[in-house]
């Protein structure tokens, strides 16, 4: 469970995010939507203790994320390519992350072959991550986040740069993981994907959560109306 209390992030006088009270329960699949600059990535970064809150707290399993680092052992995350190590090959990168979670090389290779439909790692390829296409970088980052079978998964715009079949694979995978009890938080601009997979939607506008509701048959229409995309 993730609990956010009285959280605020400001840069100087500009307040970019304010969340008075928010709880994300275990096993929820939460989608965050909002316009560019609304505060989606800021919210995810605060959950992952990547940025320092101006005030307030984030707790994961009743522990303050900024004080105790145990959340890192059960949380998988991928925000953008800045979280990849560019001079490693994808396999080396995944093996490195696997090692941090107590997985050996064959575990990682098994994981890759299980998910080969999403990203087919060519073991003979000496390509470094920096040389991959944007889509493949995204895939490597997502797989790295999933590698340790995390209890909490945080992904920022996971569908961006992915081809349609990979998007479809990812949706099924997220649903499957969620069915297995993983708490998932994703942000996305793709309203269709978000409403397809998420059980709860948070709509952020100008740094405030303006809508927080469970997904139902009308959610997509409501969101499309809100964003005026019809």
């Amino acid at each position, binding site marked *: 469970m993730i609990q956010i209390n009285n959280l605020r992030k400001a*840069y100087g006088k500009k307040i970019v995010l304010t969340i008075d009270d928010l709880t994300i329960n275990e096993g929820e699949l939460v989608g965050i939507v909002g316009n560019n600059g609304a505060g989606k990535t800021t919210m995810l*970064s605060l959950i*992952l*203790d*990547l*940025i*320092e809150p101006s005030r307030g707290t984030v707790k994961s399993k009743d522990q303050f994320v900024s004080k105790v*680092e145990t959340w*890192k*052992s059960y*949380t998988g*995350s991928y*925000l953008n390519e*800045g*979280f*990849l*190590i560019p*001079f*490693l090959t994808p396999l080396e990168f995944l093996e*490195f*992350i696997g*090692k*941090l*979670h107590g997985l050996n090389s064959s575990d990682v290779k098994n994981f890759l072959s299980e998910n080969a439909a999403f990203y087919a790692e060519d073991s003979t390829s000496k390509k*470094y991550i*920096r*040389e991959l296409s944007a889509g493949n970088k995204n895939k490597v980052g997502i797989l790295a986040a999933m590698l340790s079978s995390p209890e909490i998964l945080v992904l920022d715009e996971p569908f961006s740069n992915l081809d349609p079949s990979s998007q479809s694979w990812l949706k099924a995978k997220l649903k499957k993981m969620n069915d297995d009890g993983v708490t998932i938080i994703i942000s996305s601009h793709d309203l269709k994907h978000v409403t397809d997979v998420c059980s709860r939607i948070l709509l952020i506008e100008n740094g405030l959560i303006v809508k927080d509701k469970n997904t139902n048959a009308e959610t997509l229409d409501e969101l499309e109306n809100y964003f005026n995309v019809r």
Partner: protein
Amino acid sequence: MIELLIHQWKEKIRSPFWQKSIWLNIILGILGAYLMLNVLVIGYFADVILSKIFIDTDVVESFLKILFYYLAFELIFRFFAQQIPTLAIQPYLTLPVPKSKLLHYPLIKSISSFINVLALLLILPFFVKVICTTYPPSFCFAFIITVISLIAINNFLNFSLKKYFSKRPLLIIFLLAIVGLVIYLDVNKVISFSSIFAAGLLSIAKTPILVMIPVTLAILSYSIVYNLLKRNAYIEDLQISQRNNTASLTFLSHYGEIGNLMRTEIKMILRNKRPKSLLYISVMFFAYGFIFYQDKNINNYMILIFMGFFFTSIFAIQYGQFSFSWESTFFDSYIANKIAPFNYIKSKYLLFAFTSLISFIVTLPYALISAKIGFINAAMLLYNIGISSVVLLYICTFNTSRIDLGRSQFMNYQGTGMTHFLSVLPIAGFPIIVYWLFNYFGEPVYGIVALGFLGLMAIIFNKFLIQIVVRQFVKRRYKMALGFRQI
């Protein structure tokens, strides 16, 4: 920790620059080894050298006095040249790697920096040859621990100073003034800081328990910088530390496309580590006048011409030789956008002229030593603006190496190719040849006038000369862009 070390090693050997410039790396390696050998030899023969220079002073005391200056200058040098060996920590922040480890790692790794190795190479031979053979083991132990602690203090103190002064750049001048004052007072024997330092160090060595003082200070300097880093170990701090406030330079917008391009380039210089550190280094070079403009050189026109050339182009040439490469990361957008090639080149030409003029003005006080300096520097200013700038820009159209703007200039040869070594030769050599020819016919002063005149003519006909560069640029731009895209 070992894994992080492996990552850093891989980052180095897998960098495109390392792989592409293997010969340059070998040459740099040989130069580094040569430098270390020199320092080692100086350290070994320090007792002989010092006993000849300071005849009446004990050699250990002389060595310690020199060590005082060495450490003072080393700290300044570190401040401008030594970077915290940061690991790009962002990818590790969400992984189960404790933040503390990510912060201890670069600090511990900094101990192996080249500057520390040089200091040890200088001190250890003297220590083994003189101290160990003269003093009891307890003295030797306390002596070497104290000296190593002092080097460590410099190492860590530098990082704290960097963090502190990066937000207060004007205070750097204050810091330099204090160091200058200390040295001035010492040299003029008003307060002999070096003697106090030597006496202090000898006292510690004679009473080994006092070694706790420098060791504690070293630990303290480590913990200060560690806590500073810890407070800044968030992504936003990593990003903000790379951001600086710079003037908006809006006045340049009034000069059309050329002004706009100049404005962007100046912002690029001021907002990125590598060009900015080049700027700092160039400013430091202005102090060379105190070494070269001495009575014995004042009638040596060859030296004066060289210094005139050097002073009026120090930043312009150093920066200018990487022209176009500086923009390698966004060069494609320059090609894709509607920017007239003539304006693009002209903006660089004007920037060259502008920085040369600033350099000339800053170094003008040297003319108080002799009016000749002012006269020669003015001639070289015209030469540099008129001729050096255009020749350099022409040669730079052969630049195809990408440059990472975020890295420090010090010991960074990314983007350097044979073009850069060759480009400066004709530009710097031409004035010497012209002067030599006139001198040969007994009219050295006319040689200087001729250089100024040539420069002036080139300035008057700059449009024609720039067009030559433009034609070359248009011909080469796709090859340049291709090279710049190679990460």
